């Protein structure tokens, strides 16, 4: 008798989200299968995307082997972003770290002007994150949204404390929202429920918070896995959104990654691969070699 492998089919479909416009755009999500379950019924129309991270100021604590690929451009975020494009990134992830009151407390206007310059200089989509300070982000992100009016960028982090003010601005200026909650599926759902009262669910990306290998990655893993399962299997309307894994920064903070290049690449690579298996749809990485490493590992040749 011929053996027929069992194939599951699921009822949930992750919403497909477009970041950017026209030629400068990409799609994430849209899958109706669990990560890498290509043997089940359904498909993932948009394979995982890789964004490289750019800071709005010269990095203070990056090891030499991480700066090296960007050596000539590290003091100029616009050139740095173009370099990421040359290196094959699917998108640029601009982190406005200098706006953090504990870093430089640079102004919302400066940040907005820079964001616009970067968005216009590159031919790939742009993702913009504030510093993560919820109060300052509530000033900075609306200005950024306005400066980049109608570009359909992905902007975040939208958090419990500032979702109303930031969410409204993103809506008014035609952007997608990246909704961040601190490693907790119940809080994550709550934020989406509240945001969805005025913001379209079709324009939300979930940032469940990504921890690095050895520094709590298993929590991020189980959480992403659960978000994806509850979306795909039980069709929970508030978790059927694509997931962003903002992991590069977490990995390159570790002493292991700082020690030497090979270890750093593996640290970022293994974390990336694990979170892909858990269900991430787009990864934020820092080292271009990690992008090639993970692509090589996941693409069927």
């Amino acid at each position, binding site marked *: 008798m011929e053996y027929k492998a069992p194939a599951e089919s699921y009822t949930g479909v992750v919403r497909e989200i477009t970041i950017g416009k026209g030629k400068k755009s990409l799609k994430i999500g849209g899958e109706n299968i669990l990560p890498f379950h290509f043997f089940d019924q359904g498909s993932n129309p948009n394979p995982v995307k890789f964004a490289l991270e750019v800071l709005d100021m010269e990095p203070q604590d990056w090891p030499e082997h991480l700066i090296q690929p960007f050596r000539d451009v590290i003091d100029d975020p616009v050139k740095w972003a173009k370099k990421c494009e040359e290196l094959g990134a699917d998108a640029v992830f601009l982190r406005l770290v200098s706006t953090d009151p504990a870093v430089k407390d640079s102004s919302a206007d400066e940040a907005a002007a820079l964001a616009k310059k970067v968005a216009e200089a590159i031919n790939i989509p742009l993702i913009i994150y504030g510093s993560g300070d919820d109060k300052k982000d509530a000033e900075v992100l609306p200005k950024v949204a306005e400066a980049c009016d109608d570009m359909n960028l992905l902007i975040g982090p939208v958090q419990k404390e500032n979702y109303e003010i930031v969410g409204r601005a993103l809506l008014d200026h035609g952007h997608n929202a990246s909704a961040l909650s601190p490693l907790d599926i*119940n809080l994550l759902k709550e934020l989406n429920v509240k945001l969805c009262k005025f913001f379209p669910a079709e324009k939300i990306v979930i940032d469940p918070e990504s921890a690095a290998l050895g520094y709590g990655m298993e929590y991020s893993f189980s959480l992403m896995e659960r978000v994806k399962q509850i979306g795909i299997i039980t069709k929970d309307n508030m978790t059927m959104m694509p997931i962003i894994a903002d992991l590069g920064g977490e990995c390159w903070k570790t002493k292991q990654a700082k020690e030497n290049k090979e270890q750093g690449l593996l640290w970022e690579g293994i974390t990336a691969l694990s979170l892909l298996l858990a269900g991430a749809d787009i990864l934020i990485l820092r080292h271009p070699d990690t992008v090639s490493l993970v692509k090589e590992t996941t693409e069927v040749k």
Partner: protein
Amino acid sequence: MVIIGENIHVIAQAVSTAIREKDAKVIQDLAKAQAEAGADYIDLNVGPMKKDPEENMQWLVSTVQEVTDLLLSIDTMNPVAMEAGLKACQKRPLLNSASGKTDSKEQMLPLAQKYNCDVVISVMTDKGMPPDVDSKIESIMDTVAYANELGIPNEDIWVDPIILPVSTAGEGQRFAVACLEFIKILEDVLPGIKSTVGLSNVSNGVPNELRPLLNRTYMIMLDRNGLYSAIADPLDKEFMDLVKGKMPEIVELVYKTMDGEDIDLSPLSQKEVEYVKTAKVLTGENLYSDAWLES
């Protein structure tokens, strides 16, 4: 369902001050209010009662007995306070609680036998809290067998599966479902046994105004599965109305939700919709969030 009124609880600042200052009125008012609201037992939860356990417990029990003849549940982990409380009760008390922990087996269960009282036994063991239904059943069977050997019959034992907050990230809903299942099969594995739960713990950590709805709904669900009693808040009028069978339509609706029936929410009142949504969270059908009524 037998309701054990939870409001004399040392975590409440007013209660702890009243015990320390021997302010009888505060305690007696709480006891009377619960009795009037329809409670069957009054729980006296004094925590570890490190200071003057005998004297304090005696005072508390007689203070309450002056104003009500309801049965009392003596709720402390201090065996000295426990014995003083049991001794002072005029009617057959409930020892709340013992467990499968060695200390408890050695110090609490013999008291239940000595004073011939009812006893709450939780599923806890020296290994901690058994995580799933099978391990809960396994550990309670061990402890109940031990209690039987001491001469405590199943009929005097009130098993407590230990309810945990449904809002606990990721795990809470699994626990809520496990307790429902546990209560459902308990009678089959330990015939004649009774059961109780610390009901309000299911809503611990939830915004205050939403807690009663979770407590009420979970009570309906546990009651359907055969729960004998609950330590709960009798001052919640809607809760007591449900307990006394005054809201059969709501109960019916919660049962339908438990059965996975497809319920059309459009003709329902807001209150009915809230019960359905809450039941869906407690069955694990919908992922919990503090905004569960809003989605």
